[in-house]
């Protein structure tokens, strides 16, 4: 199958798996799972990330940090699809003593680089990892996916200043710009526009992309860094709840839990079957 078509299908599989997991656990973050699914599919299944599921702690691997740790459903589905653990294990999402915590735990699950879930932590950690690569003169890169509402946490901007000061062109920040946070649209809460000039002002090379266009994502991630000597910021314009009409652009679906009827409708719209 052609890569882009394959990624479209994988993105939708991630979506349906994440929704099925949330249906199973009764808790989850459907809206963000669905907005980030195509980005995760491109990074992991489009082989942008140089990682090895057989040797998850390989020192020279690329690091991916899910700063918006609440989107663990989509993240776990992507890690399983990439082979870090059996897809079967997704059924244990949030079960008692499961390795699939509500938010990722690197000490429990292969492929998780950082314990996230509290917002504003991923970017500083990513900056530290990028500095480590620099100190060790190693070529690996660090990708970090942040939420747009998450950027209201000041620690992100502290880290952005460090990335600029140290010319970390081995760092790629991806903003999942779905425009909705837990309680409302970002612009009704704390305005985050204009997004690109913020990052440019903090010294990043910035490019916007349709976060659901796999061809565009592949092409863009294939030419990192955007500018030698500068950290990169990719603003992925996404739709919260993307791919499932009843959830799209609805703040209530931030942590909405799909029913069995929702799952059946979603499967139909996404054109994939539940494979858990």
């Amino acid at each position, binding site marked *: 199958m052609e890569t882009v078509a394959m990624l479209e299908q994988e993105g939708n599989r991630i979506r349906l798996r994440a929704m099925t997991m949330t249906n199973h656990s009764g808790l989850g973050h459907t809206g963000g799972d669905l907005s980030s699914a195509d980005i995760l599919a491109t990074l992991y299944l489009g082989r942008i990330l140089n990682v090895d599921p057989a040797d998850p702690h390989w*020192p020279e691997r690329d*690091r991916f940090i899910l700063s918006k740790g609440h989107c663990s459903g989509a993240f776990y589905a992507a890690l399983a699809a990439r082979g870090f653990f059996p897809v079967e294990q997704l059924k244990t999402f949030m079960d008692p003593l499961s390795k699939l915590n509500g938010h990722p*735990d*690197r*000490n429990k699950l292969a492929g998780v*680089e*950082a*314990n996230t*879930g*509290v917002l*504003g*932590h991923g*970017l*500083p*950690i*990513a*900056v*530290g*990892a*990028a*500095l*480590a*690569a*620099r*100190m*060790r003169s190693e070529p690996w890169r*660090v990708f970090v996916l942040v939420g747009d509402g998450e950027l209201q946490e*000041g*620690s992100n901007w*502290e*880290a952005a*200043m*460090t990335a600029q*000061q*140290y010319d970390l062109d081995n760092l790629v920040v991806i903003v999942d710009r779905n425009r909705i946070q837990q309680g409302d649209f970002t612009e009704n809460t704390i305005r985050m526009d204009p997004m690109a000039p913020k990052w440019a002002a903090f010294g990043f090379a910035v490019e916007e992309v349709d976060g659901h266009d796999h061809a565009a994502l592949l092409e863009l991630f294939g030419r990192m860094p955007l500018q030698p000597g500068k950290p990169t910021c990719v603003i992925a314009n996404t739709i919260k709840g993307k791919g499932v009409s009843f959830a799209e652009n609805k703040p209530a679906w931030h942590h909405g839990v799909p029913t069995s009827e929702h799952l059946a409708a979603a499967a139909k719209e996404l054109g994939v079957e539940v494979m858990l």
Partner: protein
Amino acid sequence: MSVGDATMVEAVKLFDCRDAFSKTLEALAAEDSRVCAVVNDSLSSTKLKDFKAQFPSRFVNVGIAEQNMVGVGSGLANGGMVPYVCGASCFLTARAMEQVKVDLAYSNSNVKLCGMSSGMAYGQLGATHHSIEDLAWTRILPNLSVIVPADPDETAQAMRYSLQHVGPIFLRISRMPVRAVHPEGYKFELGKAALLRDGDDVTIVANGVLASRALDAADALAAKGIAARVLNMSSMKPFDSDAILDAARTTRGIVTVEEALTAGGLGGAVAEVLAVHHPAPMRILGVPGVFAPTGSAEFLLEHFELTATGIENAALNLLGAEA
């Protein structure tokens, strides 16, 4: 030294433990290319100017940004480095506590957190700059080891140990001048109390800058015929419960003394052990649930009776109350 010199009264040498800290860190960096330092604009207060000069590529200054600093430390550890994250303890712990909890303790990151000028060392600067909460905050966190060295030798040994230890450690390093309290040949061991002086009437448990005052109190008690045992509990976590239980069984009570709030710190740790396993009389000396006023560090220690006399009086009170 000639026989005659031995009779001369020697001025007691006092040390700033930050010197032992920074010199040891330089030595560790020379031996191990994974060692790096992260500071928050605190180049001079951490005494790392020489480190920066020798290892510029392994020195990161994140500016005035403590939350970011701790996260950067966690990321450096993820990338195979062993970062020493250094800043004034008041800012490092209070400002970045969520990062300490999640990025270091919960993640079990191999980061060494160095809280400098802890306690009331910044006396006159006031409660914003005092770090008397940090013992309680740090010692309750799973995975995080906590060390409060008492003198330069122990500071250097704790630093050397920290590099071999895989996992997060909080080192609480004062700038208040202290004298050497350990005998020659002392070996620091994480999780072990150091017996500075034996005695079977009462036990004084101290750490950090107050260890020498505990020894002075024991001298004063000895002059009154009271044999005080002095334990340096530099290892706040893991905690040497056995040494505490032994003290409870073989002496008549325990006085704890710390340059910290009396709630949740050294006294709290001792009380937790005693309450469950062997209740014994206690006195807990420290800052009693208030923000300290302004005044020099020495003044504040006097103000809160964290002195040889204050410790002596607490011991006498305990023994009298128990009789």
